[in-house]
């Protein structure tokens, strides 16, 4: 699929130096990649389990922690909404009407020199684990190319965080992430089945599926088909 080429290119950009990177280091490099590639003034990956418990896993750029810090402090802002609703919140101009939903945040961000903010949720279907926040010291929407890169960057970051717990002692995280095609229909179906078998969350089920596929040296898609056709179970 065309987007796999994009994923491969971004993965190559963040793993070329050192293939043994853990999730935190990988995410830091993804943020750095985004800052350089999209001319941002800041990029941060924020993990959230609710509005009260958010933490910056990694960031890059001088505004890396500005936007997140303000939102935590004020209890309002686009990243909280992106996380809560699972859809991107894109604010190309924080002084415009569209930013009025977060009056205190918008004013504080502008005062700190941030003029545009794009918050992409790290979703696993329903519910997510946080956001990738991108900001700029000037107004303007991301180009289609940059938006596509940003969405794929967020996907990789999400996967890195999800799979991290299953990568220790086994395959390296970059290898685990390099397996593409995680958005095929049968994989989502298998994920639902595994979540039911293990009485676990969708996110954990997806991570288990990917780790099992990698450990057995098989494409994730093939293993997912075995699960859906009941040749493989995860609760045995």
């Amino acid at each position, binding site marked *: *699929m*065309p*987007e796999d*080429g*994009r994923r491969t290119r971004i993965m190559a950009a963040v793993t070329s130096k050192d293939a043994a990177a853990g999730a935190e280091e990988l995410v830091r490099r993804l943020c750095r990649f985004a800052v350089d590639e999209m001319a941002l003034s800041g990029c941060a990956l924020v993990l959230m389990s609710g509005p009260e418990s958010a933490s910056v896993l990694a960031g890059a750029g001088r505004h890396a922690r500005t936007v997140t810090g303000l939102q935590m402090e004020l209890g309002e802002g686009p990243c909280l909404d992106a996380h809560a609703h*699972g*859809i*991107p*919140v*894109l*604010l*190309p101009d924080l002084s415009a009407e*569209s930013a009025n939903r977060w009056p205190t945040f918008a004013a504080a961000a502008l005062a700190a020199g941030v003029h545009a903010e794009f918050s992409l949720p790290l*979703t696993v*279907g*329903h*519910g997510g684990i946080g956001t990738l926040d991108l900001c700029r010291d000037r107004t303007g*929407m991301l180009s*289609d190319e940059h*938006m*596509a890169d940003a*969405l*794929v960057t967020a*996907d990789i970051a999400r996967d890195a965080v999800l799979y991290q717990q299953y990568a220790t002692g086994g395959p390296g995280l970059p290898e685990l992430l390099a397996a593409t095609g995680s*958005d*095929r*229909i*049968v994989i*989502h*179906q*298998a*994920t*639902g*089945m*595994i*979540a*039911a*078998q293990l009485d676990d969350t*969708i996110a954990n089920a997806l991570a288990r599926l990917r780790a099992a596929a990698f450990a057995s040296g098989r494409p994730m898609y093939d293993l997912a088909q075995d699960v*859906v056709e009941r040749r493989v179970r995860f609760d045995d």
Partner: protein
Amino acid sequence: MTETGAGRPVEPGDCGPAGRGDDVTREAVLARAFVRLADTLASDFDVVDFLHGLSADSVEILRAAAAGVMLADGRGGMRLIASSDERMRLLELFELQGAQGPCLDAFSSGRSVQANAADSRARWPDFAPQARDAGFQLMCAVPLRVRTDVIGALNLFRGSDEPFTGAEMEIAQAMAEMAAIGLIQERAARERNLLTTQLQAALNSRVIIEQAKGMISEYLTMTVDDAFKVLRNYAHYHNRRLSEVASDVVDRRIPSAALARHGPHF
């Protein structure tokens, strides 16, 4: 959404109820379809339900064997959002078109595409044999367009090699454009950020439906195809949106005993 909606079992080669020489019925069906396509401002509007309706209506009106709608995923690819029936075989056929096929061509060129069995083999050497194996000879795709933005494509298959007539292609294009306009609010078409947001929400809905299908198939020990029917029956019975019910299933807010009462052969 029609009663014969998303899960109606359509066999390849089936020409649908609106057969030839039944123009009055067809006109009436067409009129009803356009009314539904225009009805996107209701408070319970749901993208997936809406596009399931478009797929089912186009199968009926255009005498197709199967239809599906794919939307741009913002990452340079396309993804299936809804189809006239949910057999895995058909879903995979749509999915293949992320790489090659009429949908991708209609999306990237912004023009309607139609090919018979021989043409399609030459044009899409990887895709055409898979379509043939699934029982389809004729394939067609029309772009979903809002102003200059192409946001996806409506894909139609026939079991026979009989091409869609000029009039049928025009109807398909009109339905696709009507759906695109209904789907993407006027304001979203003007602001790229809203467009991206709406499309992402549609993609999320589809992912959740697939996860819910998997969960139901495990809880009730049935195929994922039957699990979809349970999901749809439950949503119809309770007059709720498909994606909303799917979210509740994934979050375990609907006990499996309650789901078991709804099918799949209900």
